[in-house]
């Protein structure tokens, strides 16, 4: 059974409780014209089949629990299991978002405490927990900037500056919010070119969006100058927090000049990626943006915790309710588990592991920026062998049981390979990864076909992406199941 739709025949299906109230009848309650004419083709599987099917599918996947996942800028760290149990506590899992506030003081307290800790980690004044992902946080930040300038009567500030190493969500978030984007080149040192920055700063600039450290894994050493320059020109500074693992517990974006900063709880704060989500992207802000934060805000007084909607300058609501509570809870527990010492140890070990890998791998791979990195670094897959690409290297890693690093990003490095081990990996794993990478580099010279044909030892081989795009089959082809 490739998909549930391939299940043949009609089963007895799930047993639901019998109707215990007098039946009035569908025909009486819902007129014919409002009823669906065609039954949805949803198969009913027996529970054993269901479990076997999804168990089989799970074995075609690879998670952090399976092995190293060195995806740059994704921070694939270990997801503590205790967090899963805590999120499932009936008191929290069973709380309806529209329940009377007196009945959910525990949930409100958790959100309030989590807010406090996250603000402290960021070194900023206040925070919204509503954004459901980093990109959602970016959008929130852009909406906040937009409102800030509108209220100051500075609506000609419509440009957002972005380094050329920016993650794709950054320009996308800016343009959706009605800003235009100006790209700032990186210098030879991989950092923002301050001369280019100064040249473009004028009264049409709303602000800058920076990832710190940047996507090359390099910390912007002149970060204070950058933020000062932007502020002096009347703009604001948004920091994309995807790379917080690089300085967690040691430095704070608020101290670097950030006006808005989003967390990726599903990266730095250990909540599971889920195969693509759900995440959570809280946005912490400096004093100048506090008035515009989304509502409701959670306040505390002598009577307890309250939903407060009375913020006339608020941008409104970014989420149905209060954010991804179930995800925030896990991050909150993680912060409690680690404490200050633990948070500090995260960045210590993450940066140490990355530098160790970089030092060893630069012997065999091209390292465009040969200097100490932070929690991640970028290699280039160029010049390894005739016709060998980063893609080939990535696919060959799969044959050795490793998930490939991030490939072809950032765009400023040709054939980029972005590697982030996280703090959770031990030297033993790192050494194994290094030796496999060295082996692949050798194969690239001596037996390139092994790379071109890779992966050979995965559940499937390389896929025909062109066919997928040219002849899209986006739902189960009921009429031609074998397609």
């Amino acid at each position, binding site marked *: 059974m490739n998909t549930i739709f391939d299940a043949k025949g009609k089963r007895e299906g799930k047993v639901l409780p019998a109707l215990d109230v007098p039946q009035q009848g569908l025909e009486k309650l819902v007129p014919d014209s409002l009823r669906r004419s065609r039954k949805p083709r949803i198969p009913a599987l027996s529970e054993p089949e269901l479990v076997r099917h999804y168990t089989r599918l799970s074995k075609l996947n690879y998670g952090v629990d399976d092995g190293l996942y060195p995806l740059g800028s994704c921070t694939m760290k270990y997801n503590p299991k205790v967090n899963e149990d805590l999120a499932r506590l009936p008191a929290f899992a069973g709380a309806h978002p529209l329940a009377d506030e007196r009945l959910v003081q525990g949930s409100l307290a958790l959100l309030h405490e989590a807010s406090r800790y996250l603000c402290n980690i960021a070194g900023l004044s206040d925070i919204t927990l509503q954004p459901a992902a980093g990109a959602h946080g970016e959008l929130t930040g852009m909406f906040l900037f937009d409102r800030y300038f509108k209220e100051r009567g500075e609506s000609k500030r419509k440009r957002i500056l972005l380094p050329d190493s920016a993650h794709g969500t950054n320009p996308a978030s800016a343009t959706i919010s009605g800003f235009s984007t100006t790209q700032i080149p990186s210098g030879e040192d991989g950092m923002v070119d301050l001369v280019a920055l100064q040249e473009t700063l004028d009264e049409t600039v709303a602000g800058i969006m920076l990832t710190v450290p940047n996507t090359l894994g390099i910390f912007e050493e002149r970060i204070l100058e950058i933020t000062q320059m932007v502020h002096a020109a009347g703009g604001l500074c948004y920091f994309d927090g995807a790379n917080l693992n690089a300085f967690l517990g040691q430095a704070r974006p608020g101290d670097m000049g950030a006006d808005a900063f989003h967390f990726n709880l599903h990266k730095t704060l250990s909540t599971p990626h889920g195969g693509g989500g759900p995440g959570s992207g809280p946005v912490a802000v400096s004093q100048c943006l506090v008035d515009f934060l989304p509502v409701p805000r959670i306040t505390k007084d002598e009577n307890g915790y309250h939903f407060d909607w009375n913020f006339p300058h608020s941008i409104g609501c970014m989420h149905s309710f209060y954010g991804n509570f179930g995800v925030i809870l896990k991050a909150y527990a993680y912060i409690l588990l680690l404490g200050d010492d633990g948070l500090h140890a995260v960045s210590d070990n993450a940066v140490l592991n990355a530098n160790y890998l970089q030092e060893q791998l630069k012997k065999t791979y091209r390292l465009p920026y040969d200097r100490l990195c932070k929690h991640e670094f970028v290699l280039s897959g160029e010049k390894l062998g005739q016709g060998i690409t980063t893609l080939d290297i990535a696919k060959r890693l799969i044959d050795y049981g490793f998930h490939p690093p991030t490939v072809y990003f950032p765009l400023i490095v040709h054939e980029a390979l972005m590697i982030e081990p996280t703090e959770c990996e031990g030297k033993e794993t790192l050494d194994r990864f290094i030796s496999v990478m060295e082996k692949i580099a050798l194969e690239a010279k001596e037996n390139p076909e092994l790379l071109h044909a890779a992966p050979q030892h995965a559940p499937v081989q390389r896929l025909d*992406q*062109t066919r997928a795009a*040219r002849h899209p089959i986006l739902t189960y082809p009921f009429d031609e199941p074998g397609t």
Partner: protein
Amino acid sequence: MTYPAQFRYTKEHEWVSLEGNKARIGITQHAQGELGDILFVELPAPETQLEKGDTLATLESVKAVSDVYAPMSGKVVEVNEAVEDSPETVNEDPHGKGWLVVIEVANPAQVDGLLDAGAYEKYLSDE
């Protein structure tokens, strides 16, 4: 390969074929190879006015989106609907059936700033 002598070329890998006051434009063999299988072609609306350097068309492959830039200023008078339906034509015959757009040039002298076949081939081998 040898590039058609009657065309002119840009460093952004477009070719131009001057036909009186009209210029037929496409991408070069090299460019289609770099892009990979082209899946979608977005062409401008007829009558669109373009300055040299404006985005003329967009080509999508599986993993990338590439802009094609106007090598000369002019007004779009014809677009190749056939490649909208069969984008693979651009891969198969980039210098012939895979043409993209015909523009009515504002200033035919702009063609002098473009590379001839020999210069383009040299540019490719230097890259």
